[in-house]
């Protein structure tokens, strides 16, 4: 069992990209080393070999001169002199007759040579230091005499052998180390990835509060972990938002729906057609309100998800703001609220005229709704840097700073306003429209009252 697991883990390690990269780099490394080794070999051992051959050639030339100028006797004598003069030089000479019987030289007999075309021979020499390799050239002289000139290359052979061994062992070891290192690295990387996978699986099975471990080294895995964790935070926040909204929706839609059902039930029970008619009319009003709420919800959802096919045209703000104020002037006067407009040449923006009008209308409507009689509502529009700014300020009770964020949520109503007509979606829609146009909302204290500031970029 443990074996099977270990085998499976090995297979996974081998499949990792880290390991495959290691194998790739290891192979490239091996090829590079081989080229280097080859070059070294050629330049050192090869050099020595070439040197040996050159020495032999030089000897041969020298001896040939002697032979040509002074004949055989002289040649034999020169050979003897050379041998006696430097017995440890490693040079080998053998002057033999046509039957290969030695006449002069330091070889006891003619060595066994395999015939070759280029005149170079390799053979084994039996000397005081045992059998050593030797390299020689052979010449046929006049009258069938043969001359062999060579050198012992035992040392050279030893060097070559060592070199080769060194390369093989070293290279082999390096390769093994590389593979092991690769395997370890991959295993460690795999462990990090596995830990992320495990956390992901836990999250998927429902525990959204879990986060991916970060080792604190700031490496690419930590960066990945940080990005993923931020994403998880955002998702958790959005889901909480949705849950919250769903709760609110359930509550705020149930009320008019209940009223509607009650009215219809009363209509059904009633024996007086006038009363029944009146109840049905009331039920219709509630139904209309519900439909309006759904429509608004849908608009907000579509605006937020980007599925709303809004207009993109140039919208002149002065005309828009004037129209909105004009529309609400009468209502404001009914409540003895002073509705004032302060236009300071705001730039035109790109957007949807109807949506922007809705935004303004909702803000002005709210301002008038929450300002007591005799109060004041001011609407201003002016340029500010690259943006167009619209403000709607009232002299009402304002909104607690702690609640200013929440007030933009769907269905959120500050307690005091729960009795007011409306569906609690006005500011949500304003928020969604603002975001759609790349605009920002800021709620502040109008001292007294609420001031809503909408900052619209000129090209959204």
């Amino acid at each position, binding site marked *: 069992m443990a074996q099977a697991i270990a085998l499976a883990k090995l297979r996974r390690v081998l499949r990792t990209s880290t390991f495959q990269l290691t194998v790739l780099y290891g192979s490239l490394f091996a090829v590079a080393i081989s080229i280097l080794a080859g070059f070294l070999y050629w330049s050192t051992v090869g050099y020595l070999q070439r040197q040996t051959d050159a020495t032999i050639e030089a000897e041969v030339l020298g001896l040939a001169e002697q032979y040509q100028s002074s004949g055989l006797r002289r040649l034999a004598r020169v050979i003897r002199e050379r041998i006696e003069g430097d017995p440890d030089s490693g040079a080998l000479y053998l002057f033999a007759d046509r039957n290969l019987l030695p006449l002069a030289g330091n070889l006891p007999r003619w060595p066994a040579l395999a015939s070759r075309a280029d005149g170079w021979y390799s053979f084994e020499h039996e000397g005081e230091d045992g059998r050593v390799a030797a390299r020689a050239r052979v010449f046929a002289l006049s009258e069938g005499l043969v001359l062999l000139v060579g050198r012992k290359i035992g040392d050279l052979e030893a060097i070559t052998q060592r070199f080769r061994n060194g390369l093989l062992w070293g290279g082999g070891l390096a390769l093994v180390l590389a593979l092991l290192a690769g395997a370890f690295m991959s295993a460690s990387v795999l462990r990090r990835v596995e830990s992320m996978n495990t956390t992901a699986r836990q999250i998927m099975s429902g525990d959204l509060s879990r986060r991916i471990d970060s080792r604190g080294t700031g490496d690419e895995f930590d960066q990945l972990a940080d990005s993923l964790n931020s994403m998880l935070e955002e998702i958790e926040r959005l889901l909480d938002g949705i849950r919250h909204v769903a709760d609110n929706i359930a509550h705020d839609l149930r009320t008019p729906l209940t009223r509607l059902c009650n009215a219809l039930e009363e209509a059904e029970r009633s024996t007086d057609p006038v009363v029944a008619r009146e109840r049905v009319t009331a039920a219709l009003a509630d139904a209309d309100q519900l439909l309006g709420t*759904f429509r608004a919800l849908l608009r907000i959802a*579509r605006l937020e998800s980007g599925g709303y096919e809004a207009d993109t045209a140039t919208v002149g703000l002065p005309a828009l703001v004037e129209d909105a104020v004009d529309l609400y002037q*009468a209502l404001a006067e009914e409540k003895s609220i002073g509705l004032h407009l302060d236009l300071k040449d705001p730039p035109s923006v790109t957007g949807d005229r*109807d949506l922007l009008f809705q935004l303004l209308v*909702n803000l002005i409507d709210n301002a008038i709704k929450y300002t007591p009689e005799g109060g004041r509502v001011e609407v201003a529009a002016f340029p500010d840097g690259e943006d167009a700014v619209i403000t709607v300020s009232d002299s009402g009770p304002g909104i607690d700073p702690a609640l200013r964020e929440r007030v933009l949520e769907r269905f959120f109503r500050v307690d005091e306003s729960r009795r007011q007509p409306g569906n609690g979606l006005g500011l949500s829609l304003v928020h969604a429209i603002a975001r759609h146009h790349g605009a920002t909302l800021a709620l502040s204290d109008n001292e007294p009252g609420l001031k809503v500031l909408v900052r619209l970029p000129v090209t959204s």
Partner: protein
Amino acid sequence: MRMRVLIIEDDNEVASFVVKGLKEAGHAVDRAADGKEGLLLASTEDYDALIVDRMLPSLDGLSIVQTLRGAGNHTPILILSALGEVDDRVKGLKAGGDDYLVKPFAFSELVARLEALARRSLAPEATESRLEVGDLVMDRLTREVHRGAVKIDLKPREFRLLEYLMLHRGQVVTRTMLLEQVWDYHFDPQTNVIDVHISRLRSKIDKDFDVALLETVRGAGYRLG
């Protein structure tokens, strides 16, 4: 005013709802359940107004509208659209539609708009310079309004509101219609701002006079005359 209406709608519930309502209101109604049948009827018969649903089997609503317009048919068309679809008034109106209504709608809204459409095509009054309802007279050139011998002072917006009501005299005009035509915006008001404007207008043209010309039609809108 009795109208001859064709409704092209595949949803039986909506269709029967509309047909029944229109008949009760005194109009003649034909119904087609799919696009091809509807186009055939619309092309061969004479109607005062058409109601065309966008989503239809065999041939969609916008194609029907485009085909009719392409063939030189100028019958006023009101396009119906389901709530779940993208709000595409512009597409619908560009295709040649005259008005656009999203389901579910209040029947009174549908009727008011239909009558306005039919009226518009039967008697093109956009060029009339003088409008009269009872003893209320409006001169569109001089921008003067008189009731009887009394000159009535109206603010520009009030004038436009009265003008629209007078152009649709005797017909029900819904709040949405007023918002679209008099204020030229398509939006959902939170409170009934229109009501306030109407009551102001009423105080100017009706209050000191015997006969009230501007009446509120419960559950629908307003009517002048």
